[in-house]
């Protein structure tokens, strides 16, 4: 029994890595632009399709083509920011939600139109491979996703702390007017931040392709979990997203073990309770929704 519980816990943490990977881009974008991108799941879907087609047409393993997918998503992010996000940055939050929801509907159904509703999956030698650690079994693809989630959070953290651009991003997040006065081109910061957030979900898409089939609405499933994760971790908080991902992964794994039919309800209930008791999230600083990314 103990071994089973340990296995469930390990699966939960690995799943949490997947959730964290999807959530980091979402939380970065919110932290800086103060916009919740409801089309984030569709960006994940685009990345998974890109990864799928590179495999199908050119035989590139998703782990090999990841650079191309990330670059593509960076471009998608640039275009989306320029066309959809920039015009609504100063609009009310209702209008911001409406615009990104519109983008989500557009992209999801464009995929339906061009790719049909069929499930498509990539089978590589690694997608079913399993390594054992003592009595526990770990899926290799999940382990990779988990390790990359850790690495990306670390790299992003260093980037924001040390690099010039990272400092400009944090500065803009804290006080846009002051950033402007210091000579920072805040429009460009928003553009780049949104593209980086999209590129991060590109990483997630490439790493998920060996694990999950891709279909037009695949993003909806993951993005709801990602919303839960980022609010739990404190919107705009990168390490919070990582820890939030692990918590939701564990909650889902254990509720899936004990009450399989209600497992999604359990994490939504956790979400509601967190929002009602501590809307800034477990790791969020109180008032962080005004101050932004720390």
């Amino acid at each position, binding site marked *: 029994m103990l071994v089973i519980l340990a296995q469930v816990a390990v699966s939960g943490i690995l799943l949490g890595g997947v959730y964290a990977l999807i959530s980091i881009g979402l939380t970065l974008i919110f932290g800086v632009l103060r916009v*919740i991108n409801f089309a984030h799941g569709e960006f994940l879907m685009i990345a998974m399709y890109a990864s799928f087609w590179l495999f199908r047409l050119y035989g590139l393993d998703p782990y090999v083509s990841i650079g191309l997918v990330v670059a593509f998503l960076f471009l998608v992010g640039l275009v989306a920011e320029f066309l*959809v996000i920039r*015009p*609504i940055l*100063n*609009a*009310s*939050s*209702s*209008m*911001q*939600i*409406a*615009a990104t*929801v*519109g*983008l*989500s*509907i*557009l*992209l*999801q*159904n*464009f*995929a*339906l*139109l061009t790719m*049909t*509703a069929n499930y498509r999956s990539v089978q590589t030698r690694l997608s079913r491979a399993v390594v054992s650690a003592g009595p526990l079994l770990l899926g290799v693809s999940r382990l990779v996703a988990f390790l990359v989630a850790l690495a990306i959070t670390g790299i992003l953290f260093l980037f924001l702390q040390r690099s010039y651009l990272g400092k400009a991003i944090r500065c803009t997040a804290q006080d846009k007017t002051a950033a402007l006065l210091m000579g920072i081109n805040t429009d460009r910061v928003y553009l780049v931040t949104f593209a980086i957030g999209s590129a991060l979900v590109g990483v997630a898409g490439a790493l998920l392709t060996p694990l999950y089939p891709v279909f*037009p609405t695949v993003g*909806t499933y993951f993005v*709801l979990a990602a*919303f*839960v994760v980022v*609010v739990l971790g404190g919107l705009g908080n990168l390490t919070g997203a990582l820890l939030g991902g692990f918590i939701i992964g564990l909650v889902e794994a254990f509720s899936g073990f004990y009450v399989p*039919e*209600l497992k*999604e*309800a359990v994490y*939504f*209930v956790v*979400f*509601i309770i967190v*929002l*009602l008791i501590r*809307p800034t999230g477990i790791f969020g600083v109180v008032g962080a*929704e005004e101050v932004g990314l720390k």
Partner: protein
Amino acid sequence: MSSVRSRSMLCSSISVRSLGVLAAIAVVAAALAFLVHDKFYLHVLIMMLLYAAASSAWNIVGGYAGQLSLGHAAFFGIGAYTSTLLFKDLGFSPWVGMLIGATLAAVVAGAIGYPSFRLRGPFFTLVTIAFAEVLRIVTLYAHDLTQGSMGISVPFRPALRNFVFRGLSNYAYVALAFLVITVLVSLWIENSRLGYYLAALREDEDAAHALGINTTRYKLVAVLVSAFFTAMAGTFYAQYIFFIEPFATFSLDFSVLLAMMAIIGGIGTVWGPVAGAFLVTPLQEVLRAKLGGELQGLDLVVYGAVLIVVVILLPQGIVPSIAAWGKRAFGQREPRPASLKGDP
């Protein structure tokens, strides 16, 4: 002189012009329901009226109170399931079940709204999504009561008492009556003290609070009324489609649709949701039917694009933009209705 009087009229009672527009819509819709015999076009008409009513109901809390809910499918589903279960298992007339369901939805809305209203902006929206998802999953799970994902069929026993009709035009008349009721409620709210309180808290909640408006109380009133009428639309849907199941009745897509119709038409206005529903519904139904299996999703691609364009170019929505354009073009010098919308 006259401008002063018309403003005071606007504050104290519903304007004659609004009632005239409503009467015109009612006459045209009733005439169409009477004259059109093509089943498909009648279906489009019924869906237009139903969505217009539901989107107007959403607009009471989403527009007037400015609380962007993406969880209204919860109330719609409660209405559909309550009346259907009471009808099927206990033999209640769906008309009675509809009122019970609407009351239940209002109670649930109060229970959800009261703790959630302190959340602002996107946080509120996310919690409404979560509540609706939980309700959907619980409905799926409680299959002893709800038959889970198998869904429930509404028995076909045509009778006025059973809210089941043979002819489609009867459904159109009922949907039209629902629309007239929700529009009248919207008009009443817009011109009442409640409407002004809601406008104040929508524009600046802290300022409204500081002026002594009990913001939580008025948001609660708005969500109770909104949920009540949304649930009635749910009952209508069950009685018209004859089949309900959790994925369709509690879907996030449906919540999104109600909100987006109102936003396209003009959020927080009487005619915005109606215009939005009248524009979007035919587009969807006709494209879907004409294109059939081919080009699946094209209707929603168009709708998503329209939504983005409207939000960016006409952020107030189509109806207020047209009204403003009309005033500019024809130089009407009417006083601006006492809206508190100012520069941000």
